[in-house]
Every structure is written in structure tokens, then in C-alpha cells.
């Protein structure tokens, strides 16, 4: 029986697809079934995997979701368009401002609203700072998943706090920004904010160097990540992998470059790509992305123009977009975050759908883990970088 290739014609019998081949274990051997989670220190929340083990090798892995299913979509269909904005903060709670942007962009598309230039700059600055927060905490959690408890996480959170201070003085809350509005941003930058932000951005390369010297050539990190969980490019595309994990497999697809939404075409930055698609690439690509992010932040903080931050014509309360639908997406730190809205011309969305990158990136988790050791499952899961608020919504 020839397994059909991933890009070939659709297989009529799903049992023949390569993923449902069991990875060549001795069928007489006793399999050990382990349930990892939902309460587990390294599952980043309440994620659960049912794993079947042959010795230490993973032969089956079925993720179980829903332990944090908070019915975001159902609630959003019952509140006004504006009322859903604070809920988007709580999707991926590391990156509330990117979520805000994606949702605002979808409503702007749905209702045809423009955004003033200063607001576009603020959106770029805040969501790139969000990317720094996310990748920094990712490194901390990733390393503590590998057993380096404390140190790296402690350093990462120290840097994160600096950016959270910026967010707090801008949006009023450390994590839940609820900052962007349809047609702009809720309020202008407070006085002195730009200088403070510049200071943080200028201090960041030193921190990245420090982290990199801790991680990049660390023997334990290398032996636990290189050649572990390899993901070929064609499989990643077919499995709808997005974000850093996709680019670590060498696929050049960054929505900031492809869609050129907002004002991203004004900045010069490169899209880092990986060669091997293994855990090490997925880990190191975050470093490179952070350095590129700094390349966006510096000119953005320098060139930000004066002006209004809200489109004066844009309505927030009682917004009734014309009948129709819209799908808008942004490059969130974890991948493609999209919002799909259907309007029936009332003040509530008829259908509100979040395209969660964290959930869809997990589609290939089983493929990555098959044949690896049980201890590597945590590393592979760590490098995919999920947040349960977004996986289960």
C-alpha cells in the first residue's frame, strides 16, 4: 500500500493517509496510555493529550481540547460590536493588542471605516511591542519546559514587565488593553510615552544578546531541540501552520508582507526563515523575529506624525454595518489571527468567528511527536507556542 503524498489527489480512505499509519511499532508490545494534563505544569494551561507510549516512544497522541472553552463566539453574537472588543483581549492574553487590531480591522472592513495615520502608527508600535512580549515570555516558558526552571523565565518576565508598564500607562491595564476602536485608537499617547518606549526599545538588544548567549549555544538546549520534531514545508502548508512555526520550516509567508495591511509597507524588515523546521529553528526564529521587530519599532517611534487618533466619522455605539461579511487577518505573534464577521445590519454580529492560530497550529502536533520520546513532546508543544485562551476560546 502506497501512502498518498500530501499534495497528491485526495485519498478516498482516510485510514490510508500517512498520519493514521501507526509509526511502525510492534503491535504485540504493551502500549502504555498516558493522559498528560489538563493539570500539568508544562501544558501552558489546561491542555490535555492522550498519549500512547511504546517504551518511551510516542506512537499515538490525541490532543483533547475544550477545558478553557469560554464561548467567546457565542457571547460575541449577543453583545454589540463595541462590546466584543474587551473580550478579544482575553483570547490570547499575552497579545491583547494584536487581537484588538485584528478585530478592529475586521469591523473596519465590514463597515468601510478609515483609520487616521497616527492611529496606524500607534497600532504598529503597540502590536510590535506585543510581539516582543510574546516572544520573550515564550523563551522563558520554553526553557522552563526543558527544565531550566526559574532563571530564564525570571529574566524574561523582568523585560516583559518593562513593556507591560508601557501598556499600562497607555491603555490603563497591564494585560487587557481594550485599546483599539473601529477607526482608530481609544486615546492618544500620554505625554512622555514615546521617550519611555524608545528607552525600552534601545535597551532590548542588550537583553536579547544576553538571552542568546544563554540559549543559542547551550549544550542541553541544542541536544534537546536539534533534529527533534521536524516539520517539512509542504506538510506545514497543507496543515495550515502559520506564524513563526511555518517560517521555521522555510516557507516565506508573513502576512505583514503579503497583505501589507496597516502601514507595514513603510518599514524595512526581513522575514527570517528556518532551514530544518526542527525545534531549534522554531526556537531561534523568535530571536530573529524580535530583532526584526526592533527594526520596525525604531523608525515607527521616530516618524510617528501628529494628528487625530480616531476617524471622527466612525461610530462606536450602535454601530450597524451594512449587510455583508468580511474576513480580516493580521500577523499575530503566534500566527495568522483572523476574524470573520457576518452582519445582518443589526447592532450585533450575526456570525462572529475567530480564526485562532494556536488551535490550528496544533493540527500537526501528532505528526511532529510520532516516533519521538515522551519528554520531547513537551519541547515540541512548547515550540509551537500555544495559549489556551485562544485554542479553546
Amino acid at each position, binding site marked *: 500500500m502506497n501512502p498518498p503524498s500530501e499534495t497528491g489527489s485526495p485519498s478516498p480512505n482516510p485510514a490510508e493517509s500517512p498520519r493514521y499509519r501507526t509509526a511502525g511499532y510492534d503491535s504485540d508490545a504493551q502500549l502504555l496510555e498516558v493522559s498528560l494534563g489538563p493539570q500539568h505544569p508544562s501544558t501552558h494551561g489546561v491542555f490535555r493529550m492522550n498519549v500512547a507510549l511504546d517504551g518511551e516512544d510516542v506512537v499515538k497522541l490525541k490532543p483533547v481540547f475544550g477545558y478553557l472553552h469560554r464561548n467567546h463566539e457565542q457571547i460575541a453574537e449577543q453583545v454589540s460590536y463595541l*462590546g466584543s472588543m474587551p473580550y478579544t483581549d482575553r483570547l490570547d492574553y499575552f497579545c491583547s493588542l494584536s487581537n484588538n487590531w485584528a478585530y478592529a480591522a475586521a469591523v473596519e472592513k465590514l463597515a468601510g471605516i478609515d483609520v487616521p495615520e497616527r492611529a496606524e502608527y500607534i497600532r504598529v508600535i503597540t502590536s510590535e511591542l506585543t510581539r516582543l512580549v510574546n516572544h520573550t515570555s515564550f523563551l522563558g516558558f520554553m526553557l522552563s519546559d526543558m527544565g531550566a526552571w526559574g*532563571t530564564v523565565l525570571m529574566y524574561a518576565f523582568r523585560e516583559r514587565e518593562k513593556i507591560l508598564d508601557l501598556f499600562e500607562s497607555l491603555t*490603563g491595564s497591564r494585560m487587557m488593553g481594550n485599546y483599539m476602536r473601529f477607526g482608530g485608537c481609544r486615546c492618544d499617547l500620554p505625554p512622555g510615552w514615546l521617550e519611555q518606549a524608545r528607552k525600552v526599545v534601545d535597551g532590548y538588544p542588550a537583553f536579547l544578546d544576553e538571552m542568546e548567549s544563554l540559549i543559542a549555544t547551550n549544550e542541553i538546549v541544542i541536544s534537546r531541540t536539534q533534529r527533534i520534531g521536524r516539520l517539512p514545508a509542504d506538510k506545514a502548508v497543507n496543515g495550515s501552520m502559520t506564524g513563526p512555526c511555518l517560517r521555521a520550516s522555510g516557507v516565506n509567508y508573513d502576512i505583514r508582507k503579503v497583505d501589507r495591511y496597516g502601514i507595514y509597507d513603510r518599514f524595512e524588515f526581513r522575514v527570517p526563515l528556518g532551514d530544518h523546521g526542527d525545534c531549534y529553528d522554531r526556537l531561534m526564529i523568535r530571536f530573529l523575529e524580535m530583532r526584526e521587530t526592533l527594526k520596525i519599532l525604531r523608525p515607527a517611534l521616530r516618524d510617528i506624525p501628529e494628528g487625530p487618533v480616531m476617524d471622527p466619522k466612525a461610530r462606536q455605539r450602535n454601530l450597524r454595518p451594512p449587510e455583508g461579511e468580511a474576513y480580516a487577518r493580521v500577523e499575530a505573534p503566534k500566527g495568522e489571527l483572523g476574524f470573520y464577521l457576518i452582519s445582518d445590519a443589526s447592532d450585533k454580529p450575526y456570525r462572529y468567528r475567530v480564526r485562532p492560530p494556536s488551535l490550528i497550529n496544533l493540527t500537526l502536533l501528532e505528526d511532529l511527536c510520532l516516533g519521538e520520546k515522551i519528554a520531547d513532546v513537551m519541547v515540541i508543544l512548547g515550540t509551537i507556542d500555544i495559549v489556551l485562551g485562544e485554542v479553546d476560546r
Partner: protein
Amino acid sequence: MGITAKNFIASYTKPESLITEEYPEEKPKLPENNRNFPFLVFDDDPDAGLRCVSCKICERECPPQCIYIVQERDENGRPVKQPKVFDIDISVCMSCQICVEVCPFDAIKMDQEYELSSLDRFDPLIHDRQRLSKSNEYYHSIHPAEAAAVDAVLAEKAARKAGNKKAADNES
């Protein structure tokens, strides 16, 4: 190791490396925009001076629906522009500030109080009108710039109203 040692030594030598905040002895200095739960602003008198006119816009717009308002009525049963009951269930409130944004009278603002944990989950977490009413001076003390701007807007409104009234008097 080297990096750990460097950070360890820096925590003794460099003041900016001393990042631990000595709460509760030393309270954090919150930025002006910081928000936690809403409160109601009154001018001068905590009862009559309440800016809230019980228009119920915030009640309607609150995404988790945690505000409950009953309008005051006078002896004849006619509605008065005052809330009789104004309850906010802070065990539901998500500090989103939408009530503040939609209020046309600048009557509801965000407080910065956060030491609210309690042993009882029911009564202490429902803030009633008495608990919510705070003076304009208090508002100035936590959001100085914003409060000054609001005062200016309100003064302008009052002046315009007075002007309109004068004009109407002159006409008649």
C-alpha cells in the same frame, strides 16, 4: 553561569536592577490611565451632587451586564434624574471602561483601588450607590489631567446652557 553572576552582582550594585516592589510597605505608583473598577463622581454633595442622571446607557452598553440601575421617583411617582439603585457587581466587571466611554455626562469614571479581596464572595463584591460615590476631588487626585479636561468641558457646557437661557430670556 557568567550571566547569572553578572545579574546577581548587578542586583547589589545597580539601583535599576533592584526591581522588586516592596508591596505592601511600598504601594506601586500607578500611571494616570490605570483603571480597575468604575465609580460615580459627585460634585460637592454626595447625594444631590451625583452627576449620574440615571439614563441607563452604561447599563445597556456594559458587555458583561454587571450594572443595575433603578431610577428615582418623586412622591407623585414621576421619574427624577437620579439613580435610586446603582449597583455594580465587581465580581463580574472586567474593567473594560466602556461605561466610561459611553457616558455623556462624565458621571462614571474608573477607580484605581485594587485591594478589594474579601472573605465573602457575595455582598462585599456588590458595590452599591454609597460605596460607588466619590468626590470630584478624589477623581482629580487619581486622574489629574483627565479630570481637569472634564471640568473644562463641563464648565463650558454649563456656560452655554446659561447663555442659551439668557438668550431665551432676552427674546421673551
